[in-house]
């Protein structure tokens, strides 16, 4: 692709005007001026630098939210005339903290660096690099993209230390491995239930299957300290507020923090995410669990309008009996919440609802203004929270001014 600058229009206009004036006024001076102008332009056009070689140096490709990262770009081209405009594209979810990802350089071996900050989790592309090769007078350019895209993984930020402190305090009464009368991945038989696609084949109870005509699997007693199931609302409505601070991001940071703490204390963590689809990750533990859950959380995108009711109906068969469920949802725009909560509690799952307040985040968008619609929605939410509490759920109304540590304390403190 090629293009020209406003300066090129200026030069060409000047040369055209001078030549026209020279014809109209029979002026040789104007003719010389016009031709000179044209000649300078044409001469400049013929000095375009050769295609450069570009390499990007990134010190890490996995960071956590709010961390910064140094990026260096090496440019190498042989021709000495002309100019280079290098633009190293980065994801719009990243911010350039120091220096710039765009550089105007003379040809040759050059290097420039910039620092980026990642305020938002996700898989962020670095690149491609756009190169404009300009003539010496910056009149026109040839543009191309060099496909050197890399992926930067930004995990949600974690307050794992604080979470672990609180979890350890709470787990002190029953430290170490102990047998719980709950279904898990131990060796002692507990019960039989319907087969789900994620069950391993060696758990199928073939005798019971033959007897009943449908696939049944054995369930075993758990041998870890605790299994916890997180239920994350990732619908479109969780995106209210800003990109960096909204109910979904808060929930994810909370889950990441608590997960790290739970896994460090030999617990197992499962995850149900609903939005446009429902994804169920059965409880897992061990060293590979944290990266798996972090990657899963990193990949969450707010979308869809699935209801909690449909999600719970779908996931109940994946939930081991009596497993505590911690639900994260702004509890907005979903008429099935009460029924779903009743359903979960009725199945014996201790339920904690951590509800980042969607209406409060939205109020922030209106700069804290008290609007009639806000009042209505807030009252509606208050009613709902009271109802859920009266159903037996533990409810935390997480307002935007309550930071993660305080929310953790509210739940586990």
């Amino acid at each position: 692709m090629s293009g020209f600058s406003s300066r090129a229009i200026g030069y060409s206009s000047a040369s055209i005007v001078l030549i026209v004036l020279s014809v109209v006024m029979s002026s040789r001076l104007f003719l010389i001026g016009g031709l000179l102008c044209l000649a300078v332009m044409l001469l400049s056009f013929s000095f375009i630098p050769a295609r450069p070689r570009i390499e990007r140096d990134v010190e890490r490709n996995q960071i956590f939210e709010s961390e910064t990262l140094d990026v260096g770009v090496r440019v190498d081209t042989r021709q000495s005339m002309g100019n280079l405009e290098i633009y190293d594209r980065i994801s719009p979810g990243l911010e350039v903290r120091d220096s710039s990802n765009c550089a105007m350089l003379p040809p040759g071996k050059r290097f420039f660096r910039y620092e980026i900050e990642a305020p938002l989790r996700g898989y962020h592309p670095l690149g491609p690099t756009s190169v404009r090769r300009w003539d010496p007078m910056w009149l026109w350019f040839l543009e191309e993209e060099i496909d050197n895209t890399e992926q930067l993984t930004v995990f949600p930020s974690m307050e794992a230390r604080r979470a672990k402190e609180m979890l350890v305090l709470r787990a002190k009464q029953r430290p170490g491995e102990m047998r719980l009368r709950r279904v898990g991945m131990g060796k002692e038989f507990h019960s039989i239930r319907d087969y789900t696609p994620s069950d391993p084949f060696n758990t199928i109870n073939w005798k019971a299957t033959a007897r009943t005509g449908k696939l049944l699997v054995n369930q075993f007693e758990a041998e870890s300290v605790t299994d916890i199931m997180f239920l994350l609302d990732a619908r479109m409505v969780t995106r209210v507020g800003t990109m960096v601070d909204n109910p979904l991001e808060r929930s994810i940071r909370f889950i990441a923090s608590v997960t790290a703490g739970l896994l460090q204390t030999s617990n197992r963590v499962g995850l149900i995410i609903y939005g446009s689809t429902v994804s169920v990750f059965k409880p897992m533990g061990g060293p590979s669990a944290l990266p798996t859950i972090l990657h899963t959380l990193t990949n969450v995108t707010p979308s869809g309008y699935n209801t909690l009711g449909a999600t719970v109906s779908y996931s109940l068969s994946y939930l081991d009996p009596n497993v505590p469920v911690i639900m994260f949802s702004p509890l907005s725009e979903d008429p099935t919440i009460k029924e779903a909560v009743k359903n979960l509690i009725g199945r014996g799952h201790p339920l904690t609802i951590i509800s980042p307040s969607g209406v409060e985040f939205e109020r922030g968008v209106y700069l804290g203004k008290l609007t009639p619609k806000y009042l209505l929605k807030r009252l509606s939410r208050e009613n709902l929270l009271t109802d859920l509490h009266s159903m037996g759920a533990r409810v935390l109304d997480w307002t935007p001014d309550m930071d993660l540590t305080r929310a953790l304390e509210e739940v586990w403190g």
Partner: protein
Amino acid sequence: MNIDRSRRIWMLIFICLLCLLVASEVISLMMRDDTDLSVEEEGRTGLSKAFTSLGGDHTVSKVLTSPALLLEEEDPSRTLFISIGPQREYTATEVHTLDKFYRRGGKLLLADDTGRINSLSGRFDITIIPGQLYDETFEGHPDLVKIDDIDLDLFTGFLLLNRPSSLIFSSGQGIIRSSPASWVDRNGNGVMDNLTSAQGEAPGPRYIAAITDPDPSSTEQGNVVVLSDPSIFMNDMIDRADNMDLFLSLVRFLLPDGGKVVFDESVHSTTGIPGLVQRGSSIPLLLITDVNLKIVVGTFITITLFAFAYLQEPPAVHRHVSVLDRTGVAEIVDPGLYDGDITEMRKVFLDRVRVAYGMSSEAFSGLTWDELGSMIDNDTLYDFARSGSLKKGIDLNNIIVGVSTWARA
């Protein structure tokens, strides 16, 4: 940055040079003060006598800015354009315009001894040869050449020329010529030398005036008379010999039925207000004349197209755009309350009452209106809860404030 700085310096140099170029041309045009052979000049070198000598059947005028104005002449066949001793060359546009005037039947009387008029007279195959003509017959001084015994249909008499030059032509016919003893000082040294070369100074008759041949295929074609000595018509010379007769005869010959005589003053710089008008309007006038208008419009369109192409798709400015400051709303897309919100507000209020009294939904729905009224203890809110509509004078904002401040008695 160094690149920015050097770019600015080059830009500045370019703009300065451009301004200098334009300014020098404009200033040279504005500062010119050549009043010789101008009809405005009443001294000995002026043309005021010739200008005032015309009358009767002839309307006399002058063109100050550009002869290109002749394009607007409605009856060219009855118009005579007189250009005597131009102080500058005619531009291509002017030549084109006068040629057009001629082809529409216009008449031209041109006189020059410097060759400046050749760009115009060359169109009619007549060329002034620079270099003073000397002759054995002169009056008092070799510069004042005398041409005797001219016997033409249009003029009979003798002329006294003042430092004339000569002319040649490839079509048309010569009407006045010098004696066989005359010669042209081509190299300007005042001596008859250089006799051998083709451009030499060998003696022989030289033509002083020529007239174009009428074109038999065109009834509209005009007529052109070219003289190689403009100064015979200047104030100091026109009254000598039969110079005035020649001038009047030529005018009569070219406009036998009378008509309009236009003196070209655009090739002489005039003074005073006419001078200001002349200087101020000559360039704009040139720019909008005939073919120039097309050129200027074409140029303007070209530049506009360039600019439009640029504005349509300017090179994107490389700047990182972050989406992190974007905000989203869902429930409070519109901060106000409208009639569509009445149902929800009623439900919210009833839920609020139910929750405040710690009742289940089933128990609450079993209440009578009276029981509910005593629980609410507020007539406005009770009416709203019962009817699900707003009474006159009460709007949704009143209700929402009432609902939000309502508490169990």
